[in-house]
């Protein structure tokens, strides 16, 4: 049997850069977008050799805002992939969609070309909070897009939410949760806002954390998310991800399980047989057909460390397996500190461990 491969397609374009966003993306003219997709197709065609060893289990269109592209282009990219790669019958194919950038026709196009999962970047159900984030859409526009997606037959939908936003309160976040739950999406990703260097938010808030919700409120929002979603039958399967049974995002689980993945597009990362590569990050270079960037063959140490700091993000945890001897003492200590626990033969973070997961995960790195 061939090995599973996950494919990531990076679309580095958006309508307008959000004030908190530090992803490799930005607005661009359609002619640039066109040249980009041309190169993307070319890059895909170059991976014939790779394709032989694998069977594709997931595809994920991320960005940026992939839904900014005409629907046919997404279809073209998928058909280029299918021409070269063997797809598993039940392959999960996701596209990130920004509310307000899709219409019925686009959604139908996605559906027809094989996309079976939509991930909406909603962030908040409060228009004032959306405005402060620099989002281009309102709650009402999102509702419209969501309704259309359902009508077009999408039965696996994720909604991205953010907590700890400027202007957000424990109460307003709870209301956002409730508004979203009324829609019964299959999956919810709920992140805390992280102020990243180099973003307008960094300039605005780094020196003024008092303008953001307090740490107490932020934690309260996190606990509320977990409690409310669990009451509604969502399972938290990773630090920030919740799903109804059988709807966990397989693509993302693959990252934490260290499944092989191949990224296409600007700055896209791949992990193939423990070699991590990263594409060119300069758009003009990529448009000239220079795709490749950095390459790093992971050492045994790096593999071991990644296995834990990625795997422990999952609530089911990881099997200690062959690393039993190596980490025995550490795991014991973290268990004594009530940061780790054993469950079904695996170790996983406790509630307290999740709160301070950076501390816990850092312990798995060698001195």
């Amino acid at each position: 049997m061939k090995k599973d491969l996950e494919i990531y397609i990076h679309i580095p374009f958006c309508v307008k850069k959000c004030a908190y966003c530090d992803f490799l993306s930005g607005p661009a003219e359609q002619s640039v977008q066109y040249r980009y997709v041309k190169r993307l197709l070319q890059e895909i065609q170059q991976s014939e050799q790779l394709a032989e060893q694998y069977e594709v289990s997931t595809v994920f269109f991320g960005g940026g805002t992939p839904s900014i592209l005409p629907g046919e282009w997404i279809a073209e990219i998928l058909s280029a992939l299918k021409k070269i790669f063997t797809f598993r019958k039940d392959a999960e194919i996701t596209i990130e969609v920004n509310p307000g950038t899709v219409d019925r026709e686009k959604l139908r196009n996605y559906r027809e070309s094989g996309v079976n999962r939509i991930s909406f970047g909603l962030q908040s159900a409060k228009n004032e909070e959306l405005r402060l984030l620099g989002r281009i859409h309102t709650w009402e526009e999102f509702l419209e897009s969501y309704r259309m997606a359902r009508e077009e037959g999408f039965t696996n939908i994720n909604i991205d939410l953010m907590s700890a936003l400027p202007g957000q309160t424990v109460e307003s976040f709870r209301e956002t949760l409730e508004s979203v739950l009324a829609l019964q999406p299959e999956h919810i990703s709920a992140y805390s806002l992280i102020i990243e260097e180099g973003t307008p938010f960094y300039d605005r808030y780094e020196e003024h954390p008092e303008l953001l919700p307090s740490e107490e409120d932020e934690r309260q929002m996190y606990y509320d998310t977990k409690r409310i979603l669990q009451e509604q039958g969502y399972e938290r399967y990773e630090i920030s991800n919740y799903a109804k049974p059988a709807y966990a995002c397989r693509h993302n689980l693959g990252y934490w399980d260290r499944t092989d993945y191949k990224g296409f597009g600007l700055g896209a990362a791949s992990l193939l047989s423990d070699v991590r590569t990263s594409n060119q990050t300069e758009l003009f270079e990529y448009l000239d057909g220079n795709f490749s960037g950095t390459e790093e063959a992971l050492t045994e140490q790096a593999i071991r460390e990644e296995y834990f700091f990625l795997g422990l993000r999952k609530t089911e945890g990881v099997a200690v397996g062959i690393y039993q001897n190596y980490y025995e003492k550490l795991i014991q200590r973290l268990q004594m500190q009530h940061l780790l626990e054993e469950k079904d033969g695996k170790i996983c973070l406790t509630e307290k461990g999740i709160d301070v997961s950076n501390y816990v995960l850092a312990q798995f790195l060698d001195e």
Partner: protein
Amino acid sequence: MATVDQSKIRNFCIVAHIDHGKSTLADRIIEKTGLLTSREMQSQVLDNMDLERERGITIKAQTVRTVYKAKNGEEYIFNLIDTPGHVDFNYEVSRSLAACDGAILVVDAAQGIEAQTLANVYLALDHDLDVMPVINKIDLPSAEPERVINEIEDIIGIEAQDAPRISAKTGQNVDEVLEQIIEKIPAPQGDPDAPLQALIFDSVYDPYKGVIIFCRIKEGTIRKGMPIRMMATGADADVVEVGYFGAGQFIPCEELSAGMVGYITGSIKNVKDTRVGDTVTDRSNPCKEPLPGYKKVLSMVYCGMYPADGAKYPDLRDALEKLQLNDASLFFEPETSIALGFGFRCGFLGLLHLEIIQERLEREYNLDLVTTAPSVIYRVHKTNGEMIELTNPTNLPDPSEIEYMEEPMVTAEIMVTTEFVGSIMTLCQERRGIYLGMEYLEETRALLKYDLPLNEIIYDFFDALKSRSRGYASFDYDFKGYVQAPMVKLDILINREEVDALSFIVHADSAYERGRKMCEKLKDEIPRHLFEIPIQAAVGGKIIARETVKAMRKDVLAKCYGGDISRKRKLLEKQKEGKKRMRQIGNVEIPQKAFMSVLKLDEN
């Protein structure tokens, strides 16, 4: 060489306030007398330590001998002895001055006389040196040479009308300085045939030659092979080499006779045997009395120095030993701290000296150090009649055994423009100063005199002075003596454990305030842990202040997907790396810089 006419020798130094251009003028003199071409000159030949050049201060005395062909056609030997320029090194300055016959006083044409100028001039006059004023930096737009000349005459009381008005930077009028040196600085005296009397004004350690003694021959003649004795330390040696100073090199010669300045070596292994100020004499024909003025310099400020990495303890010891070879005023002895492990209690002339040593250890010896708060020496009089000189707060006996304590006082002179007199007086009062008086030097400038406790000025007094006078105040001090004071030991408890390295001695009246600030500071320095950490200040077991480092509630990377695994790994690595710069005290990790936070209590 043997028959140098004393009347053709001039031994002099340059005195100035910091930044008034002493080293630049020295460079020009060396350049103009043809010892080096300007191309060979590296700016400021005399300050040969990197650190000196960077900080623009002279730490060790430097000496250079040049030959000047005067306008009268005669050749003169100039021995220029550059003196250290900071109050910490006052004793060294005084010995260097004793080796000279005259002094060039450099005054900045824009700044005028400063506290240090006065201090140095008085020191020079005390040594009966003829002082020859030079007005420097006349190329500055703000230069007011006439005003400064009047100031020199009014304040110092020396004739200054014909003082050369120069720019050492551009070289303008430096020739005039050279001519005036011959005219105004007296030739040395002394009998070359008398029993040897030579003044040690500095010494350096050389791995091949041993200690190289810098000396001024006052009486007699010193030759190769002569059996010599250092009169104060009693150390004996036989002269291996004598010579004089080229620019940056030693030039051997046959002998040095009365009036000359030069060096001697004698396979001496330790600079401790060749104390600055001591007299070298001929063992076989000794002089009757040593030269006056010798004193053993004592360390004024102490602190603990610990290697950040405990394994580097032997490296730190080696480095301190090497530095001490050249710096007899550096004191150190091993000590152990519960918090910091093995290290050394080190003694310094003052805070600048401390900083210099610390920087040299870090830079030249590549050591990462944890330094504890500097402390002065307290005298602890015990009930059993014993007196201890306390250099490490940890060693303070139990209060029940203490009869009383004394702290060192200094007499400080602060020169300041009149508009800032009020704020400087307030500062001195805050630092427990005792007002001695004030003189108006001119309409806009006053000289304030205060007695101040040394422990109030070693931390940040100078910075506070500068900031409260917009940089205009200058400051100089002299050790005065010990006075009785109600001193207490302030202890710091972190997570209920006393951290010895954070204890310090403080006046009882300031204990509460200092304790409170210390807790606040530490609260900011100590990162949050998984549990709550109380920080307490205590005097004699009684808690007087408390802060709390709240438990870390949240430290999560919300997202981590395929594209940013490398980045997230770096983040985790950084988090882990940060821990290495921490000291583990009980369960608590304390950043190394927290141990110095006591230094910065007055920062806002």
